[in-house]
C-alpha cells in the first residue's frame, strides 16, 4: 500500500479536547429522573457457606427500594459466559450474585441493595446480615493441585479447570544431548489493572427497549450475552459504551453487575445505576497475570538452544470469566519467543483458587511467555559466560524463515529480529555502556543493562467464549454532502481510533480528516462488532475500514465515470475531484458524486443508490509484532533502590498509521510493564484477605518514577492485512518487564544474585544482597 499524507501523519488525537476539558460523558455522568442506585454486599471470606441472609433491617432502611439475594437472581437471570471451550475444560457456572450458597473469594457478590441514593444504598448494605460458616480455603495454585486441598467447586470434583499441552520435536532427546541446562521458577505475581475509571453500569427499560450503558471494551458481546442472561430478545437490547476511562483487559468481560443492573431495571421499572468503588475494583474486577512457570532450557556450548520445557500453573481465581483460560494458553503458544527452538514442550494447567478471578490484562499471556524465555536466555548467557546479545543473535529465527511455524503451533507472519536488536544496540551504544559498567563496578557502583527481544501475537478474536469471531466490521458511509461517517465494531477506550480510522478514510477517499467522523461503542449505531482488545483494533478493525473505504471509492469512481461519460478505468482522482485522464476539463467533485449517489436519477444501469459500504474483515492469519527493549538501571546496594538511567525501545508494528499514537501506546505500555518489574504486586494473606487493598499499599508508578523513553522503530509490514499493520497496544508492556528485570539482575551479577521475585522492591534487593531471604 502507499502511505499518503494522511496515513503515517503525526496528527494529534481528536478525542483529547473533550477528554481534557471535562466534556466527555462517562457512565457515572448519566442521571435520569427516578433513578435508583445499587450497592453490593460482598463476601468478607475467601471461602464460606452462607447459612442465612437476613435482609429485614436493610429493607426498612431509609430510601431502600429493593434488596436482592441469590434467590432473586436465580429466578430472573441465566448464567454468564465462562470462557473458551477448551477440550475437557471444567468450568463452573457463574451468576450475577452467588446462587448456590457458597462464596469463593473475598468480594464474591452476595446481595444487592437498591435505594434512592447511592449513600442510602451503601448505608443500608451494611445492615444486610449474612451468617457465614467459613470453609478451609486455598490461596496458592500449587497447593490447590495437592490431594486433599479444599475444592472450590464440589460439583467439578477438582480444582483443575483445564490442562493444555503445546509442543513439537523431541524434547527428551534434546535435553539428553545438550551440554547445558538452565532452570528457573518464575512467579508472575497478580496485578490489578487499575483503570482510571472503575466499572459502572446504568440500565433503563423504557418503551420496550432495555438500554444498558456500561464501561466495557465489548458492547456487542455484552448485548448478545445479556439477551441470554436477562432473557430478553436481543433486538430489544441496546448497549452503549460511553466514554470508557481505560480497560487494559479488565473491561473485556461480561460481568455479573451488567446482568444484575439490567435485571433490576426490568424488575423495578426504574433506571438503575451501579458504580464500582475503588475498593470494590480491587476485589471484584479481574486481576491480571497470576502464573507460576517452571522453565528449563537446554543448549549446546556454542549457545545454540536445543530444547525448551515449560510447565505453567495458572492461578485462575475462583471462577472462569469470559476469557480466563485464553490467557495462560497464550503463554504456551508463545513461549518460544523470537528463537528457533526445534524441540519445545509446554504444559499449561489452569487452577481454581479462593481469590478474585484472573483474566486478560494488557498482554494477556504474552508478557508471561516473553518473560520466561527472555529470563531463560539471560540465565543461559550467564551459564555460558556469553554476552546476552550474542546468545540471542545465535538463536533468532532468520528473516528468510518467515512465515515460520513454532513447535508450539504459532505461525509468525514476518519479522527481522536482528535488525530491531541492532538498532537498539546502536542507539544505546552498547559497547560504551558495557565499558561504563565495568568502570563503575570498580567504584562500587552497580549499573545493569537488560535486554528483551520479544515477539507477540495480535489481532485476536476467534475465541469460542465470545459471541463474535475473529472478524471486525466497518461501515464507511459518505453522506449526501460528501461528509463521511465511519461506524466501527471495535470499541476504542483511549487508543485513539477516532483519529487513526479517520486517517485511513482520508487516505483512501482523499477527503480531509476533519470531514470524517468515527462512531463506535453503540450497538444501535453500529450493527455488528466484536470489540477492542488483544491489540486487534488497528490490524483487524482498521483493515475493515480500509476495505470498506476502498469499496466506496470504487463505487464513487463508477458513478463519476458515468457522469463524465467515460470508462471507470479512465478516471483519476485526487480525492476531492474525479477527472477523465487526459481531459482535465472533464471533472466532477467528490461531493457532487456523493449527492448523485443519493439523488440516484443518473446512476449506471443496475447500480443501487447510496454511497455506503459495510465490510466484515476476516484476517487470514494473526500478526506478530516484535522488537527489542533495552533498559539501563543503577542499583544502590545499600538501600536496594533501583534507578532508571535509560530506556530504549525499538518496536516493529509494521506500517505506522500515526507515530504520535504509537508512541503513546508504547509509553503507557512500558510504564505498566516496568510497574510489574519493580512496583506492583497483589499480596494476599493466608486467609485470602487482600493486603494490597488500596493504592497506599498497591504501588502504581507515577510520572516521577519512570525514565524518559527513547523510542525507535523498524518497519516490517504484515502480509496479512491491507494496512500492513500489527497491533501495538500491548507491545510496550510485553517488552518492558523482562528488560527491566534483566537489567537489575545484570547489575547484581557481581553479587551472585541470579533471580529475584517481582516486584523487585528495595527490600527484596537488599535481602538478596544480605543473603537474608526472610521475604514472603
Amino acid at each position: 500500500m502507499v502511505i499518503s499524507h494522511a496515513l503515517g501523519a503525526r496528527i494529534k488525537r481528536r478525542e483529547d479536547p473533550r477528554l481534557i476539558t471535562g466534556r466527555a460523558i462517562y457512565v457515572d455522568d448519566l442521571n435520569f429522573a427516578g433513578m435508583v442506585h445499587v450497592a453490593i454486599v460482598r463476601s468478607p471470606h475467601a471461602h464460606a457457606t452462607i447459612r442465612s441472609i437476613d435482609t429485614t433491617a436493610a429493607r426498612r432502611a431509609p430510601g431502600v427500594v429493593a434488596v436482592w439475594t441469590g434467590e432473586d437472581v436465580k429466578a430472573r437471570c441465566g448464567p454468564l459466559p465462562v470462557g473458551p471451550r477448551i477440550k475437557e475444560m471444567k468450568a463452573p457456572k457463574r451468576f450475577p450474585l452467588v446462587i448456590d450458597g457458597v462464596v469463593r473469594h473475598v468480594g464474591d457478590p452476595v446481595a444487592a441493595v437498591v435505594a434512592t441514593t447511592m449513600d442510602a444504598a451503601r448505608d443500608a448494605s451494611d445492615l444486610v446480615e449474612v451468617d457465614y460458616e467459613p470453609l478451609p480455603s486455598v490461596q496458592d495454585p500449587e497447593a490447590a493441585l495437592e490431594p486433599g486441598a479444599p475444592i472450590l467447586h464440589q460439583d467439578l470434583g477438582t480444582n483443575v479447570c483445564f490442562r493444555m499441552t503445546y509442543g513439537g520435536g523431541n524434547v527428551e532427546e534434546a535435553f539428553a544431548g545438550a551440554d547445558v541446562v538452565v532452570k528457573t521458577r518464575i512467579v508472575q505475581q497478580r496485578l490489578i489493572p487499575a483503570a482510571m475509571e472503575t466499572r459502572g453500569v446504568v440500565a433503563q427499560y423504557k418503551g420496550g427497549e432495555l438500554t444498558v450503558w456500561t464501561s466495557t471494551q465489548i458492547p456487542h458481546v455484552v448485548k448478545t450475552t445479556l439477551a441470554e442472561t436477562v432473557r430478553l430478545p436481543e433486538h430489544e437490547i441496546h448497549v452503549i459504551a460511553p466514554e470508557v476511562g481505560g480497560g487494559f483487559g479488565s473491561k473485556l468481560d461480561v460481568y455479573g453487575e451488567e446482568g444484575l443492573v439490567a435485571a433490576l431495571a426490568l424488575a423495578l421499572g426504574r433506571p438503575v445505576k451501579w458504580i464500582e468503588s475503588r475498593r470494590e475494583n480491587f476485589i471484584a474486577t479481574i486481576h491480571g497475570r497470576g502464573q507460576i512457570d517452571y522453565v528449563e532450557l537446554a543448549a549446546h556450548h556454542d549457545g545454540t538452544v536445543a530444547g525448551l520445557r515449560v510447565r505453567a500453573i495458572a492461578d485462575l481465581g475462583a471462577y472462569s470469566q469470559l476469557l480466563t483460560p485464553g490467557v495462560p494458553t497464550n503463554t504456551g503458544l508463545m513461549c518460544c519467543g523470537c528463537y528457533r527452538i526445534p524441540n519445545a514442550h509446554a504444559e499449561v494447567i489452569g487452577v481454581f483458587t479462593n481469590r478474585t478471578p484472573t483474566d486478560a490484562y494488557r498482554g494477556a499471556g504474552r508478557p508471561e511467555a516473553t518473560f520466561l524465555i527472555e529470563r531463560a536466555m539471560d540465565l543461559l548467557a550467564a551459564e555460558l559466560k556469553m554476552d546476552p546479545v550474542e546468545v540471542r543473535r545465535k538463536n533468532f529465527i532468520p528473516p528468510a524463515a518467515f512465515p515460520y511455524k513454532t513447535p508450539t503451533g504459532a505461525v509468525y507472519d514476518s519479522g527481522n529480529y536482528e535488525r530491531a536488536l541492532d538498532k537498539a544496540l546502536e542507539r544505546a551504544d552498547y559497547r560504551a555502556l558495557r565499558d561504563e559498567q565495568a568502570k563503575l563496578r570498580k567504584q562500587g557502583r552497580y549499573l545493569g543493562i537488560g535486554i528483551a527481544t520479544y515477539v507477540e501475537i495480535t489481532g485476536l478474536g476467534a475465541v469460542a467464549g465470545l459471541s463474535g469471531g475473529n472478524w471486525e466490521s466497518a461501515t464507511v458511509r459518505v453522506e449526501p454532502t460528501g461528509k463521511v461517517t465511519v461506524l466501527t465494531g471495535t470499541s476504542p477506550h483511549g487508543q485513539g481510533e477516532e483519529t487513526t480510522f479517520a486517517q485511513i478514510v482520508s487516505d483512501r477517499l482523499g477527503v480531509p480528516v476533519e470531514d470524517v467522523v468515527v462512531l463506535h461503542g453503540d450497538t444501535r449505531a453500529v450493527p455488528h462488532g466484536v470489540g477492542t482488545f488483544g491489540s486487534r483494533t488497528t490490524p483487524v478493525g482498521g483493515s475493515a475500514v480500509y476495505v470498506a473505504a476502498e469499496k466506496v471509492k470504487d463505487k464513487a469512481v463508477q458513478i463519476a465515470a458515468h457522469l463524465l461519460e467515460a470508462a471507470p478505468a479512465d478516471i483519476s482522482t485526487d480525492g476531492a475531484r474525479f477527472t477523465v485522464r487526459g481531459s482535465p476539463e472533464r471533472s466532477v467533485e467528490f461531493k457532487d458524486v456523493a449527492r448523485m449517489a443519493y439523488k440516484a436519477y443518473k446512476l449506471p444501469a443496475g447500480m443501487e443508490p447510496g454511497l455506503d459500504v459495510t465490510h466484515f474483515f476476516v484476517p487470514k492469519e494473526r500478526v506478530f509484532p516484535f522488537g527489542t527493549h533495552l533498559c539501563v538501571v543503577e542499583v544502590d546496594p545499600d538501600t536496594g533502590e533501583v534507578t532508571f538511567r535509560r530506556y530504549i525501545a525499538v518496536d516493529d508494528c509494521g506500517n505506522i498509521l500515526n507515530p504520535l499514537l504509537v508512541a503513546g501506546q508504547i509509553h503507557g505500555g512500558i510504564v505498566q510493564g516496568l510497574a510489574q518489574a519493580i512496583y506492583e504486586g497483589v499480596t494476599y494473606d493466608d486467609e485470602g484477605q487482600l493486603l494490597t487493598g488500596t493504592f497506599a499499599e498497591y504501588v502504581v508508578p507515577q510520572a516521577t518514577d519512570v525514565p524518559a523513553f527513547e523510542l525507535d522503530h523498524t518497519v516490517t509490514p504484515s502480509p496479512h492485512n491491507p494496512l500492513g499493520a500489527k497491533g501495538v497496544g500491548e507491545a510496550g508492556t510485553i517488552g518492558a518487564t523482562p528488560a527491566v528485570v534483566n537489567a537489575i539482575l545484570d547489575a547484581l551479577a557481581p553479587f551472585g544474585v541470579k533471580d529475584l521475585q517481582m516486584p523487585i522492591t528495595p527490600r527484596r534487593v537488599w535481602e538478596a544482597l544480605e543473603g537474608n531471604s526472610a521475604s514472603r
Partner: protein
Amino acid sequence: MHVLLPRTLEEALEMKASAPPAVPIAGGTDLMVELNFDRTRPQAIMEISRLPELNVWRRENGTFSLGAGVPYSRIVRDLTEFRPLVEASRTVGSPQIRNRGTVGGNLGTSSPAGDALPVLAAYDAEVVLAKAGGKIRRLPFAQFMTGPKKNALAPDELILGTRWKVVRGPGSFSKIGTRNAMVIALASLCLVLDEDGRSVRVALGSVGPTILRAPDAESFAARAMETAGVWRDPFGPLPTRVIEEFGERVAAAAKPIDDVRGTAAYRRHACAVLAQRALRWALDDRKLTGAR
C-alpha cells in the same frame, strides 16, 4: 453532620469548648480519606483553614513559630532557611496535596509516617495548644505525640502551631519509600547539627509507634566529633568507622514492625543507611560553609 464555620480563632475555641467532639478540618488531606472510607463519622467538623491566626509565622528572640494552618507549598516556597523542613514538605503528597496539607494536620493526625514530624522532633519543637479563655499550653513534641495516631490534645483544644529555637548548622530530611513520590515512607530520618550547642540530633519516622529520637547515637556522634576535633575544624577527618557506628546506633533506636509495605529488618537497615548518609551530607555541608 454539622459544619462549624468560625471566623476567628476566638470563635473557633469557643465552638470547640461547647462542642468538643467537633473535628477541625484545614486541608482535609487526612480527614477526608477517613470520611470517604467511612472510618470515622464525626458529629461535627469545624472548618479552620481560613482562620488568619493559624496562617502566619513569626520570629522572635531566636525562636520560630509556625502556624498550624500554613500549607506545605508555602513552606517550600518561603521558608528555605529551614532546609530539613522544606525537604520534608516537598515529599508530602502531590502539588495539590501540598497546597492544602498543613503541619497542623500532621500533628493532629500524629501518624508515625507524617513527613513533617521527624523534623519537628529533631528541632526539639514545642506544640502550642489553645483553648477558650486564652489558655495556652506548650508541650515538647515528645510529650505531644504519645503513640500511633495518638496525642495529648485535649478535646476542647486546638493546635495553634509549633515553635522551635532556631539553631545554626546543617541538616537534612530523607526517606525511603516504595516509589519516589506520593508514598507512605518505609523509613524517614531527620538529622540536625547544632553548631553552638555542639550536638547532633536525629529523629526517625515510620519505624516505631511514635517519632523516635536516637539519644545514644546522638551523643556518640557529638562526642566523636569532639574527639576528632571536627566541631572546630570542619575539614578535620571523622573516621569512617564512626559514621558506620553512628548508623548502627541509630538503627538500634528504631522499633520497626513488619507490614505489607516492608519488613522490620529492612526498615532498621534503612535507618542505618539514611543516618550514615545524612551525617556525611552534614559534614560535607560544613566543609562548604566553614561551619559558620
